[in-house]
């Protein structure tokens, strides 16, 4: 990725985060209905045009950024914490606990993730809280599998044996001596998870399982706009391009982060590190 691409990706993510954090403080009126402006195209007053209720698409796009940001960050944080702890402890402990976790993970992986999330969101009812719960229930599996595999490869290390010899407790060993070593792949996984969750939230909102009207989310904006593609394409293009740019930016930066954290890749000024030595 070129420097320009990196800067552009960072700028997109910065704007996304800024919009999400500052949206409530900005003078926006995302729910203000103006019947005379129904489906009007971009103009001076609403420079991304108005939607099917005459609301400013720009204002709704910014508020939608807050929704998608909250859901994506919320789901990734919850999933990563639960998945990592479960996977790490099961991997370290081994035995029955590990076997049970493996079977549970297999069962979850047998379902297409988004389908399970749709079913859960459908059962629990629409709403942002329920979307976060539904996506977290599906999302923890990847982190658990990754953490378990990493811990299995590290738990025979000398420093872990030394900690055990010194009488260190199991919790301390996992949290203090193993988690820091497996953080890199988990961070990379979380980065890609953010992109997936932005799409998942948009998908659930598109199906009417996300935030409820009149609150804005990118997915529901796309759903509303799809009905007017023939006469008001700006209703779909604005949120559609926003989703695409955020997902692309997160993926590009995640890719870059993975490369940066991969010790096998030679970087200027650094000696190559043997993969057998670990991080």
């Amino acid at each position, binding site marked *: 990725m070129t420097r320009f691409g990196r800067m552009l990706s960072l700028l997109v993510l910065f704007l996304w985060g800024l919009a999400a954090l500052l949206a409530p403080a900005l003078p926006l009126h995302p*729910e*203000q*209905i103006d*019947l*005379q402006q*129904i*489906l009007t195209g971009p103009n001076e007053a609403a420079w991304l045009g108005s939607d*099917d*209720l*005459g609301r400013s698409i720009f204002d709704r796009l910014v508020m939608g950024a807050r929704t998608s940001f909250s859901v994506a960050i919320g789901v990734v944080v919850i999933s990563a914490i639960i998945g990592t702890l479960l996977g790490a402890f099961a991997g370290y402990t081994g035995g029955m606990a590990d076997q049970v976790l493996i079977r549970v993970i297999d069962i979850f992986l047998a379902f297409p993730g988004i389908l399970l999330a749709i079913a859960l969101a459908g059962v629990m009812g629409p709403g942002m809280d329920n979307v976060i719960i539904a996506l977290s229930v599906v999302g923890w599996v990847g982190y658990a599998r990754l953490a378990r595999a990493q811990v299995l490869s590290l738990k025979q290390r000398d420093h872990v044996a030394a900690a055990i010899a010194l009488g260190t407790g199991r919790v301390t060993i996992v949290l203090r001596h193993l988690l820091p070593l497996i953080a890199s792949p988990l961070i990379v996984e979380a980065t890609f998870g953010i992109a997936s969750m932005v799409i998942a939230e948009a998908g659930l909102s598109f199906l*009417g399982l996300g935030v*409820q*009207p*009149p609150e804005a989310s990118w997915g529901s904006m796309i759903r*509303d706009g*799809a*009905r*007017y*593609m*023939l*006469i*008001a394409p700006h209703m779909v293009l604005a949120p559609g391009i926003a989703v695409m740019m955020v997902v692309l930016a997160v993926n590009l930066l995640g890719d870059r982060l993975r490369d940066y954290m991969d010790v096998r890749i030679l970087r200027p000024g650094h000696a190559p590190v043997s993969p057998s030595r670990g991080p």
Partner: protein
Amino acid sequence: MSFPSASCARFVAQWRTARQWGGLVLLLMFTACSSPPPVDTIRMGLASAPSSLDPRVATDAASERINRLLYDRLVELDDAGMPVPGIARWERLGPDHYRFFLAPRRRSFHDGSRLESGDVKATIEFVLEPGNGSPFRTALSLIERIETPSSEQVDFFLRRPDPLFPAYLGVGIVPAEAAARSHPFNSRPLGSGPFRFVDWPTEGRLILQRLRDGQHFSFVLVKDPSVRIMKLLRGEIDMLQNDLPPELAAFLGRQQGVVVARAPGTNFSYIGFNLMNPDTARLQVRRAVAHAIDRDAIIEYLMQGGARPAQALLPPEHWAGGKGLEPLEYDPPKARELLREAGYGPGHPLELEYKTSSDPFRIRIATIIQSQLARVGVSVKVRSYDWGTFFGDIKAGRFQLYSLTWVGIRTPDLFRYIFHSSSLPPGGANRGRYRSADADRLIEAAEAVDDLSRQAPIYQRLQALVLVDLPYLPLWYEDQIFVHRSDITGYDIAADGNYDGLLKVKRSVERAPPASDSQRDNDG
């Protein structure tokens, strides 16, 4: 030398013969492979497919509209909702005795058998049989017995006099002989209507034939309005009626080769209040909501003029319709004042829950009403549900506000069904639990009068009372919109949205059916 020459001549002769036979075989093969001459079919796009083509049980709008084409009825209703002869005229021989005379020149059933009084008797008796679960039973339950003095006459004896009785006989007549052997009318309809059933290979494709000229019609299910429009523009369907967002109808009006026609409709949209709820039971709250909603703005900008404001269940042109009723003015200051009087204000805001179906257009309307009510300090939560959940909640009284539309209402017997205190669900449709001794008295007084012209003023007084009590907040009557390709002519739009216009519709210039005609029919 002669041998080779003779041999050669014989070979040539054989070759010629073989070639002639081969040509004939090839000709036959090609003839056999080619399809029969294609039939020009006029295609109509439907938003929902008919659920049953049995006129004795079907009540959904699509089924009723198509059943009107397939079956004949004893009685029709004119534009004012008055009963007029269908395939029979009638005489009232006594207060509770009607004699119907079948028209001498009437169509036979499509299987060739003649429609006679026994068929009428069998059809109505099927409806009256409780075990058959016909939704028309309630309306016809005042029939005590049916007699057939001859094959051309049917006598109805009623439990109580009702001058509007003929208007209830709008059920399509099916042949008694086929009914006796449990013919599946729901999927293989057999009637005597102006259209004959041809085929129903899939849910989304029903084919009928008009008897008058043999013209084929295909009813194609296309649920998504945008897709329906694209198919119309591409010529995959020739016409469609209603179920279009107003902006898309306006868009179609600007397209070449497509014509958009409108006519005033009678389908009544309203907001229902729950009178068992502590908030919405208060008249001041209901009146405040009525004055806070700007119906004219919604009609002008959202519906693009495709509706007219309603003050009553039946439109003014109906013989029993509400006439000269004061419109509910949009008056936010008055709404705030009413709320203040009722004890609501900034410190104690009124919070309401508004239920609607998951139809996107209904959600749009709900969102606008939510915003208009917010301007007078009423906080509204919009809850949209799939149809089954939504309608179940409404029937069970689990709501504060809801919006619905009455479709195809033609007779004032509906007032008892909707507003009488004895008509609570599941027996009736008094979903808001409206209990008014005055309303009950007016309904009973109208039913007791033995003359329609004297019933009308009583029903008008009832509608004026309902407009004051506001168990329903009348919104509007939505227009009927018919969109067709420019080569389609002759369709008259009905106020209730029925498809009777297909009786006269035709393609003005005979179109050569495209090569992929049969394939396109499957697209639905």
